[in-house]
């Protein structure tokens, strides 16, 4: 599928509006869209809604052998999937530029800033460590995928709890969550990325671009910070030229936004913790909005089973008996086994009228086999009919092969001789 291209008039309109400091959805230049964070049923699953952009993150863990040059550190693996659901432009399985960009930026934001204590993930040094895998799926692309992905990733990592591990000498036991409570990961700080988009060669700047604004922007500056005002990563992309003052200004704006977002995340995590402790149902099912007209829920319903047995019995009785199973391999001749019945051998063994004609054709059987079958069918169709007139085609030379059998019309003979002639000429050509 291809994405619809952006019309020139729409592009001009957007740029003009930005020059007048107006945005499509009425936001101010430095405003973020509404962020909503919900959690799934199991630990480590989180959904983030940034306006209409929707992203899901899932954290999972596995015990693997560590890397050779870091034997006592765990492994972090990030994967951003641009699902075809998010936008018609995303294709399954293709590593587009955007995909590489997002993956690398997220890796640098979370891995290089060392937000997770990887040494605590070690089980047996040099042999077994935990590999934490974060899968992020883009569900709806309405701009600013990077920020939504970073919020989802760090929230899911905070939410995740890994199984407890017990070591007795050489044996390592992983306890399932029912036996021992799982342990949360040890995370030092919460890096969050903020994206700035530049327009008209860097004259205008917008925070949190939506999809339309992203299409007309010149370039993007991504700053990842944590609430302690430490910059974790800066990345400028797109062919824009920045000035030092612009970068400094962006970093100041970013620090304000990051503290707001961090508060939001901590609040959401607390709410979820409370809900889980209270023992109520939690997860995606509960977070479905009930008041919406597009949503409906139905409670557990029993299914009527009263006459099921009778219906089933009837159906089985009325059903045909299964076909006779073919007997086990038959040995017609020593050294040759036959399984199944196979097709009837139709070369010269039939008792029908066609037999005699086939004898005539036996010389050119090989090449004519296909044509013969067609002729046979043709003959069968017409065998019940009356005498057929000779066709009007002049090139045919009509030869009546079996004059004593009248119901086989001359047309049949003609057609067969025609094909015979064709086969003969074909044979001549192959020679």
């Amino acid at each position, binding site marked *: 599928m291809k994405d619809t291209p952006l019309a020139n008039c729409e592009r001009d309109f957007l740029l003009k509006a930005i020059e007048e400091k107006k945005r499509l959805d009425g936001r101010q230049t430095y405003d973020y869209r509404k962020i909503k964070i919900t959690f799934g049923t199991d630990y480590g699953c989180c959904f983030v809604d940034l306006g209409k952009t929707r992203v899901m993150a899932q954290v999972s863990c596995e015990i693997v052998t560590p890397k050779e040059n870091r034997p006592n550190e765990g492994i972090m693996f990030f994967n951003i999937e641009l699902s075809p659901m998010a936008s018609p432009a995303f294709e399954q399985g293709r590593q587009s530029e955007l995909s*590489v960009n997002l993956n690398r930026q997220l890796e640098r934001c979370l891995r290089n*800033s060392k937000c997770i204590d990887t040494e605590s993930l070690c089980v047996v040094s040099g042999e077994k460590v935990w590999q934490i895998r974060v899968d992020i799926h883009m569900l709806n692309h309405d701009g600013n995928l990077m920020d939504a992905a970073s919020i989802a990733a760090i929230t899911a990592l905070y939410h995740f709890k890994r199984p407890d591990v017990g070591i007795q000498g050489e044996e390592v036991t992983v306890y399932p969550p029912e036996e021992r409570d799982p342990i949360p990961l040890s995370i030092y700080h919460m890096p969050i990325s903020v994206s700035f988009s530049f327009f008209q060669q860097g004259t205008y700047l917008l925070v949190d671009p939506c999809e339309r604004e992203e299409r007309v922007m010149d370039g993007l500056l991504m700053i990842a*910070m944590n609430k302690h005002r*430490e910059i*974790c990563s800066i*990345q*400028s992309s797109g062919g824009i030229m*920045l*000035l030092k003052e612009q970068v400094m200004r962006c970093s100041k704006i970013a620090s304000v936004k990051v503290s707001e977002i961090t508060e939001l995340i901590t609040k959401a995590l607390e709410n979820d913790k409370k809900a889980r402790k209270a023992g109520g149902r939690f997860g995606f099912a509960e977070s479905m909005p009930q008041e919406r007209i597009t949503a409906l829920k139905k409670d557990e319903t029993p299914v009527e089973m009263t006459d099921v047995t009778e219906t089933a019995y009837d159906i089985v009785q009325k059903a045909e008996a299964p076909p006779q199973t073919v007997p086990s391999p038959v040995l017609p001749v020593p050294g040759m086994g036959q399984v199944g019945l196979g097709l009837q051998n139709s070369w010269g063994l039939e008792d029908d009228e066609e037999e005699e004609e086939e004898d005539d054709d036996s010389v050119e059987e090989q090449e004519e086999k296909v044509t013969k079958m067609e002729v046979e069918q043709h003959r069968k169709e017409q065998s019940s009919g009356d005498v057929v007139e000779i066709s009007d085609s002049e090139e045919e030379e009509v030869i009546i092969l079996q004059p004593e059998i009248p119901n086989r019309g001359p047309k049949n003979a003609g057609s067969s001789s025609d094909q015979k002639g064709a086969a003969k000429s074909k044979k001549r050509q192959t020679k």
Partner: protein
Amino acid sequence: MAGLELLSDQGYRIDGRKATELRKVQARMGVFAQADGSAYLEQGNTKALAVVYGPHEMRGSRSRTLHDRAVINCQYSMATFSTAERKRRPHGDRKSTEMSLHLKQTFEAAVMTQLYPRSQIDIYVKILQSDGGNYSVCVNAATLAVIDAGIPMRDYVCACTVGFVDETPLADLCYAEEGGGVSSLALALLPRGGQIALLQMDARLHQDHLETLMEAAMTACKGVSKVLDEVVRQHLQEVSVLTGE
């Protein structure tokens, strides 16, 4: 690399340089006869080779042709012998693809692509020996190669990697300094206007230090641009002597 002192009390680094000193830059232009432009640049122990083909007709997918500009196609790769351990996948992995994208972005900003609509300019860079500052050395080498090819640019593109240790910015990091978890900032600059073509930073750095670090990076880039300018002028002199002008 815990315990390795990156900056001694007297202000010397592990290779004996001062904090703001750049490594020795040596460069040659026009090293390949068959390419339109080529350059070889050494910055300390990091050696890079850059080759430019173009502008020529679009090869490959015609659908990517731009009606008003030239398309810049970059490829970054490292030789398998360039690092201490043999590199198993010289190109095609995520890091190399990301570097190629960054190079493309840098040169799209600097090269005057409006002069060559519907064409393609290829820039290939290969690292022969990697000792830190890979991206910066690539950019510097590629700048010389583009100049050697005679493609007009707005300004020299100079890049430098700076790190932050003990409240001091260190200019032009080498491999040992990069690996120590030091916050490093890579900056590609067009020196005359002070415009930043690419800015990339990893690892934690407090916001207040950002300005000092960027200043240091820009000064270092300006130093590099002087060296590159000299190399270009010298090369021109040699060539004009050979052609007898």
